[in-house]
């Protein structure tokens, strides 16, 4: 799903001003996925997450927005990997067309190997991230308090309380409930309506603004 970074940023900032930390984190995290070098989105997301941490009783230190200098969005990262592989392919073809061992052939060989390795690393990392996101999409708790309780086929488990703005990952879904995971571990089942997937946030912007 595509979205406009400014629309998402504005929705997140309004939510932050209204004290709706869940919505603020969800919109701002989505805005940063599209435009990770925007300093205002990084700052407001840092504020929202610091308030979430403070609400959990954790020590709220000074806000340190994430670095924005060389940050790439996922789309840009994919293009970077593709360009690296393209450069590697050009250099490899030039190397192949030089039948004799010449200095130019050695240069072409070096130019082919370095971007090829970098491209493969970036593609691997992005593929793992994409597969992880598809299997367990990232979501944000938007309900003020959300109870992650025992699942339908699980043994006894103590319920876990989640607060607005906490980031989790989702697993299987059954009816109105969805499995909630923290740190790669399922912690229980919660109502779907209390959670927004970050990739779905553009769907909520109009709904949020109309409220």
């Amino acid at each position, binding site marked *: *799903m*595509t*979205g*406009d*970074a*400014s*629309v998402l*940023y*504005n929705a997140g*900032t309004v939510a932050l001003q209204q*004290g*709706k*930390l869940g919505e603020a984190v969800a919109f701002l995290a989505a*805005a940063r*996925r*599209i*435009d990770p070098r925007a300093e*205002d*989105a990084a700052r*407001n997301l840092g*504020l929202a997450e610091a*308030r979430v941490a*403070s*609400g959990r*009783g954790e020590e*709220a230190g000074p*806000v340190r927005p994430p670095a924005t200098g060389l940050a790439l*969005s*996922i*789309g840009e990262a*994919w*293009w970077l990997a*593709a360009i690296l*592989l*393209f450069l*590697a*392919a050009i250099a*490899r*073809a030039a*190397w*192949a067309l030089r*039948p004799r061992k010449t200095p130019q052939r050695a240069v072409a060989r070096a130019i*082919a190997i370095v971007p090829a390795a970098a491209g493969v690393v970036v593609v691997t990392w*992005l593929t793992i*991230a*994409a597969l992880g*996101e*598809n299997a367990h999409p990232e979501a944000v708790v938007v309900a*003020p*308090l959300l109870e992650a309780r025992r699942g339908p086929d699980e043994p006894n488990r*103590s319920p*876990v*309380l989640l*607060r*607005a*703005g906490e980031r989790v990952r989702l697993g299987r879904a059954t009816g109105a409930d969805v499995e909630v995971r923290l740190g790669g571990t399922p912690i229980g089942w919660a109502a779907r309506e209390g959670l927004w997937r*970050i*990739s779905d*946030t*553009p769907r909520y912007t109009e709904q949020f603004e109309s409220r």
Partner: protein
Amino acid sequence: MTGDRSSLRPPRARLVAAVVLWAFAIVPAVACAAGRLSVEVALDRSQAAVGEDIQATVVLRSDGLELPQFAFPTVAGLTTVRIADSQNFSWINGRLSRSTTTIFRITPTAPGRYTIPSIRIAAGTERAESAPIALEVGAPGSASPPPAAGGGAPGTPSPVWGDQSAPDLFVRLNVDRRRVFWNQPLIARYTFYTRVRLEQEALWEIAEAPGFWREILGEPRHQRVRVGAHEYLTTQVVMAYFPTRTGRLTIGPGKVEARILKRINAPDPWSILGMPDVRAETIPLTTDRASIDVRPLPSGAPQGFRGAVGRLSLDVRVDRKLAHVGEPVTVTTVIRGEGNLAAAGDPEVRATLPLRSYEVGGGTTTDRLGDRIRGERRREVAFVPEVPGSFAIEPVRLTWFDPVEERYRSQISDSIRVTIVPGDSTDRAGGFVAMGPPASLRSRKGPSGTLTLDPSVGAISLAVGSGVVFLAASLWVASREDASRDPRRRRKAALKRIVLAAREARAKHDASAASRIAALVPEALGIRYDADTDGRSLEDAIALARARGATPEVAEEARRLVVALEQLAYAPASSIYEAPGKDAPRGTASDHVLVSAERFLDRLAREVA
């Protein structure tokens, strides 16, 4: 006016006034705090031999700052040396407690039955006294292994191995008390003594102890001690036992197997190594049993008693006293001290209103490294208020049995009032976290993009296309390198180069072309028939080619061409070309020879293919 006066007072006078005020404030508190006082004395064994070292441990405790000095009683026939001291302070629920542990080494100088008198201490109005302790001392070497040895033959378990008066190996089981209450921990020490070489460290088999729950305290401890006239290396395993039923119970025997190295032959004087013959032998040893009298807890346990036995304290706290509707308030109860914390149970935590509550954390941590088992048991309960107002956490009560004082004790926390105000919990977070205002809204349209982590079609097409090109180029290079390593292809390539060289030479139309082509013919023959003709005469080259399969016709043609080319090379220039260079006439005899030679070379190259 008062403020003016104090500001005029010299700094030294203000300091003295502050000290006096502090003294007035703190001294009564300390005096009140110098409450409960206790002293305990324990020996590491009740029987010993003359000259053997016995360890005495004296523990003083006070629920205040003041802790009196004491002197270890002097007993004729026993030499006492103070070895070590340690101190401990703790501040729990606003109450200060202090304890000191002092270790003495007692060495008997004469056999007999001794009684170490009580140690009496006093602090303020509090007094405490330890129980007298009996110590039986035998003749030198006689009392080393507590029971009489039962043989010592290999394979027959007994507490002693070797000479009865000065055994090489023996084992002991000591317990710090023989009468305990149900669930009161007792400490057992399994000690292995050796003064012979072992092949490997002795391994204890943990003793059977039906009716007890047990915990190992730390790693095995190694020490050198003197028993009688001999010095031994000891390995001691310390365990805590918690009786889970009453009556007469038994601990032990502990079993250990030691593999000693036994010399069976003297060194061979004629051997350059001079090593004695040594054989490993397994010696099983078993300790005596320890009989323990486990008493039931006294009747009349207070309400809320859940089986905690030991010396415990309770700490209760909440994470906030002001909360918003829907915001959880977490109450933490911590039980600390010595005793059966794992089985002690948690005190009940209740609120004055019917609130949703969740158990959000907890656990027991136990310190097993010292000579006592101590730790803390923590439980966290979250209450979620749903309406504004206030509620209170009711006083939390912990009841336990103190086996030292032989009575039930209770500690009750204060009630804690929590105020609930309306509004989202996030408002509170916004109010508490001072981090500056958020960045303002944007007026311009921002970049648009996908929120999934999947690649775009363009990027993936470019990446895949590049990968295909890369792979194709790699395969092409690989196949070309394979081809270059094929000898047949290499020969063909070499012959092609010769044909090209001959063609270039002929195209120049100068006199040297014939001599250059004449030199190429034997080389081409050698390459064609895989013979080394480098540096050889024409006839030798032809003979080698013949030997490698060249037909007589080919050999004759080569010879004829070379002769003709050489004649051409040494003929006067005017007889060959009308003019040098590009003006040379076409279709002359010389041109015919050069063309024939080039065709011959080309034919050889095609034959290799």
